[in-house]
């Protein structure tokens, strides 16, 4: 299944805080900030304290606080798990 847009899901132990297609997402990786766009190569990264910056497909920007977590992205499906 190949999506045309990058789909992002952000999950915390309490709930799913973001779910939808995005233009870009910027996350705080262990080695510094990096950005995912669509058709990104498969990646698994661990995240540190920082902010997740999301620009939705409709241009709406969102900021989420992140205390650390894991990011996985494959076939335009990105999943971020935030945990303390």
């Amino acid at each position, binding site marked *: 299944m190949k999506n045309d847009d990058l789909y992002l899901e952000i999950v915390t*132990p309490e*709930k799913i805080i973001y779910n939808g297609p995005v233009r870009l997402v910027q996350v705080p990786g262990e*080695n510094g900030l990096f950005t995912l766009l669509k058709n990104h*190569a498969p990646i*698994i990264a*661990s995240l540190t304290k920082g902010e997740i910056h999301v620009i939705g497909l409709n241009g709406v920007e969102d900021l989420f606080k992140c205390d650390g977590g894991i990011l996985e992205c*494959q076939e335009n499906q990105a*999943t971020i798990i935030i945990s303390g």
Partner: protein
Amino acid sequence: MANLKDIRTRINSVKTTRQVTSAMKMVSAAKFKKAHDDVAHITPFVEKLSNIIYDLVNSCMCAGGEVNTPYTKKRAPENILIVAIASNRGLCGAFNSNIVKKVETLLESDFASQYKNKSVDIITIGKQPQKVLKQRGFNIINDYNDFWDNPTFDAAAELAGSFMDAFSKNKYDRVIVVYNEFVNAVSQIVRAEQLLPLEMPVDNDVKHSFNYIYEPDVDSIINTIIPKALKILFYKMLLDSLASEHGARMTSMHKATDNATELLGDLELEYNKARQSAITKEILEIVSGAEALKS
């Protein structure tokens, strides 16, 4: 037939009991709602986490690598730790006794030889199973009954951390958690799950393996994700058990209230019958007295 006063006393006592059970039902229903929400919230999180672990482990295996952490090492099961999760309070049907039964079956079947060698330790979370298991002479080394006073993730993580510590120091070769899995308000499944060593979801015919970029590198990702996953899995088990407990209590109290209502109906019928026969008897006495006077 019992006399009127006896029946009246019984009716009153059944009424009081019904009041108590229906109040407990209400309380459980309110608590159940919260516990159920917690379970519903953590479930997608656990699912996503397992998916990521699945992808991670399998693509790592495909690349010829190995997953090596202190928490996944398989050893011959000599020393066993069983964690029994149930409740501090009773009056919730078979909720607690199911856990006790499951622990006993485990000791009689899977871990019979270890049990004979006295190398099975039990930790309880909940006063009820602790009481029963102690009575039957099992080796309970510790309890964390206070956990239910304030069931937070941090407390659960600390507990899970202590198990992980004991496992990585070779004190135990297996850690089994016995708990009630939450299905819905009326049904729970008793489960005995192996917490440590963590079973790797290895799939021999993986349909899609990705050549992942790892950031910063595989080992450090695995070493952060596995301990986190263990803690979250353990927390989920506790939440499941809590929701099951309230669900079980809600249903059993509901049944008790229904039974009390039914009993009350029967008693009232009996009371009316007794009253009627007493009245009949009195009239008979009066009439026969009057007859005697006449003649």
